[in-house]
């Protein structure tokens, strides 16, 4: 439980600390956003980071508040849910075999996006989300980062690339 007041919320854990190789899915074949979210939740459940209900929560929230973002040159989506079913903060990543439709965050009426990379975010503190998303957005807008990410062929390459990019953006 967090106290209300004007104090600064705690900093989120660094991106590199949330990502493990087993949370990276390369060439994931999926037809729908729901399928992507459910598949991404599997390694997080297996690692004890989230409860099984997290996937349902994230999909429910995605339908109400879509998380697709028109990053260039590849669109991404950042599904997440409230921390109710998060046991340990984590970040899962899917590089999709073919693009999947997500709707753009903040669009009304919905703007469909063909998304290539999906990050499933599980944080324990709601208040950390804004700071974490800012850090992730800065990493994703590093020139050439998304192209390099899409070309990764192994989970180790993905974690190394993201760790390097997030380290560079903080220095």
């Amino acid at each position, binding site marked *: 439980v967090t106290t209300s007041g004007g104090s600064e*919320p705690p900093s989120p854990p660094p991106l590199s600390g949330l990502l493990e190789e087993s949370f990276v899915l390369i060439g994931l074949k999926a037809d729908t956003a729901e399928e992507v979210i459910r598949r991404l939740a599997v390694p997080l459940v297996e690692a004890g980071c989230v409860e099984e209900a997290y996937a349902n929560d994230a999909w429910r929230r995605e339908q109400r508040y879509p998380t697709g973002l028109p*990053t260039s040159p590849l669109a991404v989506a950042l599904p997440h849910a409230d921390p109710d079913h998060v046991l340990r903060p984590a970040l899962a990543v899917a590089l999709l075999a073919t693009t999947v439709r997500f709707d753009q965050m903040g669009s009304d009426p919905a703007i469909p996006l063909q998304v290539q990379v999906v990050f499933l975010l599980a944080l324990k503190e709601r208040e950390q989300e*804004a700071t974490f998303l800012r850090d992730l957005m800065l990493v994703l807008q590093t020139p050439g980062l998304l192209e390099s990410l899409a070309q990764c062929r192994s989970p180790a390459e993905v974690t190394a690339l993201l760790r390097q990019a997030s380290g560079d953006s903080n220095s």
Partner: protein
Amino acid sequence: LVETRIVVTHEVGLHARPAAMFVQTAGRFASSVRVKNVTTNSESIDAKSILGVLTLGVVRGHEISISADGADEKQAIADLRKLVEGNFGESEGES
């Protein structure tokens, strides 16, 4: 050009649903609308861009500056102020 400053008090800051509502509201106006995070002394960005707004990293307690320039600038500022002051349509503690 009209400008206003306001402290964001929403629990999650300016991201997720609040960010989406902010961008949608700004997008309804013909005026150019820009926003910056005063607390972190960020760049001023296009308030109609969700990517830009997320990059501001506005958390609870941060002060933002909103500026609008155009025919409907006053209404744009009034509506955006109302949105932030009204805690994005949520009462305290509601998720």
